[in-house]
């Protein structure tokens, strides 16, 4: 039979870097009573069917980061960034948690430390290179106008 396991996450110093999450929402993540009211119709839960990809899962992910039991991973990025910020969980939460704000903070802190998904990487590169997310040459910006 397996042993009782412990989970090692981020160190105290590393957690501090999740500043938005730990400064504003740490207590909220502990207030989540894990009732799943936010889960049943969360669109990404309906699509993927894994708790990590549901509203309850994302609030727990935030708690896992601040309590030092989780560390960022590719899988976590996918789980967090497949939230479409529809606010269904916000309406359903009996604890009155600012669910989408917590998820936004989680996304923000992850991205700020360089953890973002492929498509975001592309957008950032384009903005840095062209000043817009479309990767279009700014000099051609007015080309759509016809000459009179």
């Amino acid at each position, binding site marked *: *039979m*397996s*042993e*009782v*396991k*412990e*989970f090692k996450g981020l160190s105290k110093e590393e957690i501090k870097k999740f500043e938005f999450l730990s400064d504003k929402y740490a*207590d909220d993540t*502990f*207030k989540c*009573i*894990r*009732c*799943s*009211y936010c*889960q*049943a119709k969360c669109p990404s839960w309906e699509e993927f*069917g*894994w*708790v*990590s990809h549901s509203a*309850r*899962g994302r609030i*727990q*992910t935030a708690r*896992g980061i601040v309590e030092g*039991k*989780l*560390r960022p*991973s590719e*899988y*976590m990025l996918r*789980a967090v960034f497949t939230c479409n910020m529809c606010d269904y969980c916000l309406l*359903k939460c*009996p*604890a*009155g948690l600012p669910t989408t704000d917590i998820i936004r903070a989680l996304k923000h802190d992850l991205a700020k430390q360089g953890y973002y998904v492929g498509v975001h990487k592309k957008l950032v590169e384009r903005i840095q290179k062209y000043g817009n997310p479309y990767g279009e040459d700014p000099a051609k910006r007015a080309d759509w106008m016809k000459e009179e």
Partner: protein
Amino acid sequence: MDEKIIEELKNIVGEEDVSTDPLEIYVHSRDSAPFQGFADVIVRPESTEEVSQILKLANDYKIPVYPRGSGTSICGGPIPVLGGIVLAMYKMNRIIEFDRENLMVTVEPGVICDDLNEFLAPYGYFFPPDPGSSNAATIGGMVGHNAGGMLALKYGTTKDWIQWLEVVLPGGKVIRTGSNTLKSVSDYDLTKLFCASEGTLGVVTKIGMRVAPKPKYYRTVLFYFDDLRKAGNAIVNVRSSGVVPAALEIIDRISMKTAGEYTGMDLPEAEAMLIVQTDGLVEEQVQREIEICFEAAKKAEPIEWMMAETEEERNKAWAARKAAYPALVRTSPATTCMEDMSVPVPKIPDALVKLQKIPERVNNLVSIGIFGHAGDGNLHPTFQYDEREPEQREAFFKALDIMYREIALPMGGTVTGEHGIGLIRAKYLIDEYGAEVVELMKGIKKVFDPNNIMNPDKGKPWGVIEV
């Protein structure tokens, strides 16, 4: 866990239905109670056949298995405390058949209670057990804990509606208990044995249950009392009036205050609030019944009351009761834990007085608000504290000892009316039943699960581990 076993699990259910990712393991490490345990792998079976193969594998290698519905249990029921396999029933969520002539519905365990009722509503039927968590709780989880709710006084709890179960036993054997007939005494009533067995005997894979005609009319009356004993008398009077109300709920002063602040409702200063509701298919009868309940409760001298005439008034009458728990969650410093004890109905006032004093006995390191199903004696003392503070966590567990050992049990009550044993109440079972009965239960467990792989060391008071 051995990679070979993970591979075998993938062969059974397919790669996409097996996860060993630390994040997935973490989000399956808790239910709604303040405990945590980490599995090695989460598996999402889709059929009885897959569950059977998994239980054969687990039994061969003696790997713990934890069935899981939505993880809303408030006792640590589905927490994988010894590692092993979490059997997440998410994909087994089909409503298989509705037999309108025999008034029975067959479902898989992952169906959510509200979804079932949404399906039944157009036909004019409903599945009456109504946990507050009905928008999340699965039928499998409701069988696991024999869930009840506000309507239990009139309609009973989950087990009263289950006719038969398909269950996979450790080793993979598939059995069917019970029958489609309304009456049958040909077995030891294995169906009811599985209800509240908390996943410790086998995995429920199909459920056959009765449904009831959905009431068309409701009447509600609300009372405020300046004395808990008067409220207690009102409960006794209503219960002996000859009418069985659909709901008879109580909220104590502290919960009323918190709920009032949270909803912005202007509630009177009172020691307790009672709500009585009648329901049925014939309007005159429902009306007459509420009048009888009203007269009965009034004899106990309420300070105020409100007979809800319209739907709007009815919603208003229920607002404070429905807000009681969310309000406590919102005002908690961090952790909120809804507890569950039942006492014989006439003991409710005594129990409330004693429960309200618990925080003083633990240096006010926890707070408490109380509400519950007064009609059947089932109270939900709800504790607020911060589990990150070791002192407060310790005080919470001490408060539970006081509540169960010094209040519920000496009053002839039980340590759980509907939430289950899980981790949180396992240690009180010997207090409630004595060692001999517990030994008998242990024997039953051994018959079904000789290798102790099903939700091991949990649900019942042997080998309880502290987490």
